[in-house]
Structure formats: structure tokens, C-alpha cells
């Protein structure tokens, strides 16, 4: 793992820890906001590839 990757991972970990310490009500409000944002992205309906990867038995 490169030093840059290590720093990115550490930064994400610190961010998760900071978010985990928020009051529960605030965390649940963030979840509701994330869901609203996710729905807005989902509504864009990206095109599906003609030949999608499938898991097959080898």
C-alpha cells in the first residue's frame, strides 16, 4: 500500500469516527438526507451495458 493510500484510509477512518460521535438524532437526520440524495441519483437511470458481467460457475 502506498503512503497516499494509507493517508486516504486514515482520513476516512477519522471521518467515520467523527460522524459516529454525533447525537443519534443528528445521525438519523443525515441518513434521511443521504436517502433523499440517493433517490435523486437513482432517478437519473444510467444506461445498462448490452453485455453485463455475470457470475458464472467455472
Amino acid at each position: 500500500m502506498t503512503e497516499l493510500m494509507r493517508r486516504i484510509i486514515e482520513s476516512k477512518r477519522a471521518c467515520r469516527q467523527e460522524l459516529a460521535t454525533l447525537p443519534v438524532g443528528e445521525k438519523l437526520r443525515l441518513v434521511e438526507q443521504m436517502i433523499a440524495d440517493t433517490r435523486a441519483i437513482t432517478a437519473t437511470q444510467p444506461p445498462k451495458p448490452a453485455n453485463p458481467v455475470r457470475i458464472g460457475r467455472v
Partner: protein
Amino acid sequence: MEKIFALINQMEADGVIGRYAIGGAIGSIFWLEPFTTMDVDVFVNLPPSAGGALLSLSPIYDYLLARGCETRGQFIIIEGWAVEFVPPGTRLVEEALTAAVVRDVNGVPTRVFTGEHLAAICLQVGRARDHDRVSRFIEQGALDAEKFEDILHRHGLLEKWVKFQQNYPQP
């Protein structure tokens, strides 16, 4: 979301459900960082139906439909959230329900599984996303080691815990 919890508290007070606790992803968010999820899992003890020993979810549906909620598959839509009422299906979940704790959500007391029980349930279920959640609990330092290992020991999960630690090195 506290409106949902207030309604569930009212259901408990009205005797429609027995003891309840929030589990699943929303329950985990009480102890972890917020992450996306689409439903609310409410684990409930059901009062026995009148005149019989059979347990039924019908009183829950009747109560909520009478208050303007709608159904979607096994879910009941409350305040825009898909809420599922689940009777405990394993001894571990029964214990989690008994040991659940009350936490305040914007002034609404809400009963939720402990972090140790949530992580143990994830380990027991064992899907990739469950393992991911266990590693988040560990990373957050949210689990009391003694309590967690005691639960794992009592529910025969120590072998799974050893395997988990081999596959998921310390974060």
C-alpha cells in the same frame, strides 16, 4: 424518524406489541457513523392472540392501517420509511431484545439493541455486508470485549469469530 419511534412506543403502551427494540442497520447507526439504508427493522415480542397460542402480526397491521399507514410487501410504510416488524427468530435475537437499552432520539426514548448484540447477530448471519458492519463496530471501538466474547461463547459463535479475525485483519 423520531415520529416512527414515538408511534412504536405508543403501540407498546397500547399493548399491540410487547417489548420492542430497533435492530438492523438503523440500530447499528445508533452506535456507528450514519450510512444509507432503506428500512427500519423493529424486533418485537408479540402478545399471544386472544383464545390461542398462535402469534400473529395482524394486530400490528390493523393498528397502523387504521392510522393511515400503507403496506408494501412485508413492510409497513410509516413517515416514508419501510418498517418491518420481526418476531425474534433465534435465541440470540431473543436475548438481544431482552438486553436492549433505551437511548434518546430528539426527546423520544427509543429502545435499541446493544452494539455487542448487533455485532454478534451480524457475525451469526454472516453475509459480506454483515462482516463489513462487524469491522465497523471494531474500528469504532464500540464493542466491550468481555461482553462481546461472552455473547459469542453463549451462542456458539467463537469459531465464526476466529475465522472473521483471520479474514479481516485489525483496521
